[in-house]
């Protein structure tokens, strides 16, 4: 079993906000192994900042948070001004589960990216929490309690020396919150790890806390207070006179009571025996995860049935419109369609193959996928999934961003070929409606005269077509990632990011197509 018996010692911690305002001044505290410390304080006081600092998620440097102080947790002491702490495994307030992965994959990816390969005891401890959860179950199908346990198990598998819980009882009713507290206490004792629990509503967690630290926002210090609810409330009221004196938990939701599943979690090791999670978790290489994300985004961005129907329909319409209106609404319309037929077909083939279909294909592809990317990335930002990935040492750039960009390029080219095929077919059928007595081969010989000069090999101009389609998709995908990665505080901001991503992506697409088309005239 991977167990640490290191105490967490923070010495002389000073944190300044990005705006220069002080958060903490020369604060020191320690948490012993198997000790559960409750960190309480007014809303917005900065409790979660300390969790982020210990979990290595606080951005410090010029224009960011400024941190100084030292951290001891086994091994060499760490200078927090220059080094990023990696001691804390965080259980996020909103769980931050990877909702594109199944339950077991959430655990598997954490185990595969842990600093040390989790041993069977650690896996057993972590998976003991998962009774009632199917390994292949999707995150979205899990209840609130199941997600909570899944998030804790995932953090345990990361095997960090310190457990950090960011408001774990937020949104839970009294019974659930107390059971969760018991679970945390049992975990710490079983794994002999120190735990820092940030809590806004303290009553339910007090019974399991060994000590309580109060965030003194006036003096910018952490001070230890008695494990007494009234004393803590009084101290909090003193710090924030605008806060309601009582009933701060009155707003706790009643929802989820029936589906908590926490009732069984009091017993570790031996729970969840109904399914062998150890075998399910197994071990996968990083290349496996790269391929996993590559396949996931390939499916979502390129070849899902709706995507194919959407692109195919666009190409069908493009092929019909260019052929029908090309013959009917040019100069003198139908009167010259017979006389100018051959050259009209050659021209339509060239324009359709090198300009119209690539452009429509790119616009449809980028518009749809930029929306998906911005929504996906925005959701990951809003639900702290990227933070969780960072805390679990999973490189989002290596997996998600590269998978998106590769699929944007490859998918755009695959769908270009499909679109060209569909548009050509629609054009051929539309032409046959207009000239029913003629053989299809006549259409073939003229339509592809400049695209396939020898009837087999594409002309060199198709290289430029591939370039503009691939480049526009790459740039648009990059823009969607950048926009999606922006700060997200609400779903509304994700919606705005989606709209912005579509506009920027389509504009970039139009520009790339226009510039390359003009350059290759």
């Amino acid at each position, binding site marked *: 079993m991977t167990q640490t018996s290191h105490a967490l010692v923070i010495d002389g911690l000073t944190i300044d906000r990005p705006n220069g305002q002080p958060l903490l001044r020369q604060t020191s505290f320690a948490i012993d192994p198997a000790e559960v410390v409750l960190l309480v304080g007014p809303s917005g006081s900065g409790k979660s900042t300390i969790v982020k600092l210990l979990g290595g998620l606080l951005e410090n440097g010029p224009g960011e948070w400024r941190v100084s102080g030292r951290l001891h947790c086994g091994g060499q002491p760490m200078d927090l001004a220059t080094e990023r702490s990696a001691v804390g495994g965080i259980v996020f307030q909103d769980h931050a589960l990877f909702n594109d992965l199944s339950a077991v994959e959430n655990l598997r990816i954490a185990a595969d990216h842990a600093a040390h390969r989790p041993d069977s005891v650690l896996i057993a401890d972590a998976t003991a929490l998962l009774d009632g959860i199917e390994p292949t179950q999707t995150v979205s199908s899990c209840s609130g309690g199941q997600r909570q346990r899944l998030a804790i198990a995932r953090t345990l598998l990361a095997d960090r020396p310190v457990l950090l819980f960011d408001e774990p009882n937020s949104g839970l009713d009294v019974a659930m919150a107390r059971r969760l507290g018991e679970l945390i206490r049992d975990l710490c004792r079983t794994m002999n790890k120190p735990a820092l629990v940030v809590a806004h509503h303290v009553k339910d967690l007090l019974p399991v806390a060994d000590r309580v630290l109060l965030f003194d926002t006036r003096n910018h210090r952490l001070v230890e207070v008695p494990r007494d609810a009234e004393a803590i409330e009084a101290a909090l009221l003193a710090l924030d006179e605008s806060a309601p004196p009582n009933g701060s938990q009155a707003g706790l939701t009643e929802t989820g009571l029936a589906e908590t599943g926490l009732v069984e979690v009091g017993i570790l090791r031996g729970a969840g025996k109904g399914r062998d999670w150890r075998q399910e978790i197994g071990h996968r290489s990083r290349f496996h995860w790269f391929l996993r994300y590559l396949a996931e985004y390939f499916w979502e961005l390129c070849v899902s049935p*709706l995507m*194919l129907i959407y692109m195919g329909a666009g190409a069908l319409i493009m092929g019909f419109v260019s052929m029908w209106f090309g013959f009917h609404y040019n100069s003198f319309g*139908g009167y010259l369609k017979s006389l100018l037929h051959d050259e009209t077909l050659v021209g339509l083939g060239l324009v359709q193959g090198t300009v119209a279909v690539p452009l429509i294909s790119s616009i449809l592809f980028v518009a749809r996928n930029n929306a998906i990317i911005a929504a996906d990335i925005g959701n990951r930002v809003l639900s702290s999934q990227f933070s969780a990935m960072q805390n679990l040492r999973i490189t989002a750039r290596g997996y998600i961003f590269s998978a998106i960009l590769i699929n944007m390029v490859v998918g755009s080219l695959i769908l270009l070929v499909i679109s060209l*095929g*569909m548009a050509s077919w629609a054009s051929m059928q539309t032409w046959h409606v207009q000239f029913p007595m003629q053989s299809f081969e006549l259409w073939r010989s003229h339509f592809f005269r400049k695209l396939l000069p020898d009837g087999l090999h594409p002309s060199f101009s198709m290289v430029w077509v591939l370039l503009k389609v691939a480049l526009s998709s790459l740039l648009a995908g990059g823009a969607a990632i950048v926009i999606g990665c922006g700060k997200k505080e609400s779903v509304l901001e994700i919606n705005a990011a989606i709209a912005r991503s579509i506009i920027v992506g389509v504009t970039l697409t139009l520009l790339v197509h226009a510039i390359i088309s003009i350059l290759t005239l």
Partner: protein
Amino acid sequence: MTPVNALFGKPAAIAASLALGALFLSAGWTTLPTRHADATVSYELAAPMDGMPAASVAAPAAAPIPVPVFLMQPDHATMRSGTGLLQPDGRVDITLFDPSDPRLIHGSEALMFNTEFRVLWLLATDEERARLWHGIEEVGRGLRTAMDGIFESPEFTGEYRDALQEIGRMAIEEAWRAPSTRATYEEFLRSAEPMLHDIVGRDLKAIAMKQVEPLVWSLIGANVGMALDPFRSQSWDLAPVDQAIDAVLREAREAGLVNRAARQLADSWQAKAFLKTFAGNVVDALAHQQRLRDVAGRMVNDPRLAAYLKPVSGPAGDLARLAPDLLFGVQAGADLNALAAHTFQGFLTGRGGPLIVMMSARQREDILTLDRYSPRILLHAVPQ
């Protein structure tokens, strides 16, 4: 999650994607040109007909050249039905687009043409050609009526005729005085003398000599009495000489001697050079005449003269609509006239080349009746 995914699970969604991808790609695949298809039927060029002008036949090139192949249907509508390869030895291997097309039953015979508008005329039906002729005649009649009307109109005779005659006269005089005209004229005269000498010495002498002997006897007969009278006071009777000269002139005229001489003179390069130079100088003189431009401008803009063009405007408009309609098939909603499209393209690009039209034996005979020379007959050959 897509609806397919939600309803039937991921495997069903993957299967749906694979099916859609295969469907789309196979649809696209069907649009690609057929490549490397074997020749369906072969022909070889028949020997050129006697009297066929060399320029009117499509001679086989040094390397195989692709030739479009059309099928003429019973109603004379043409459709593109394949591609041929004209080999240097005159062999034509034809790959039909669709050998199973039942319409090919009307295409047992084949003719090869040069790509030119005349082909459209030859391939038109008798009724279409009759309608076109009628239209052309109507235009001709209208044109004559219009020109007669203009030339006899008081507006023309009163304002333009004298001026145009004066301009013409001045241009001819100016051209005649031009040094280049004089030089070529002198050269023409110099070349004419030996030709006339030759005609007189050979043809006219023979005719004259035929009259000399009768003339001698006639003169003797007419003057024998006076020759024996030593005191004669009357002059000689020379009437036989006049008769002989008349006879010589009559015989020369009957023999076409004058016409032949004139033709011989006109055929000489000196005569052609003179006429070309003279005509060119007349045109130059006309072109430099500011008066002509003024008069012509006034005529064109004279609404009184325009009224006389009415007889031609109607038939010309009818013909302008009828000809493309019949020859090119340019009607709204009409199916493609592939031959017209190909011909028009060849006309515009100047790259006509040969084309092959497959037809029934009856249609081939009808076309050869119209024109024995421009189409080349293709004989059936064994495919290789």
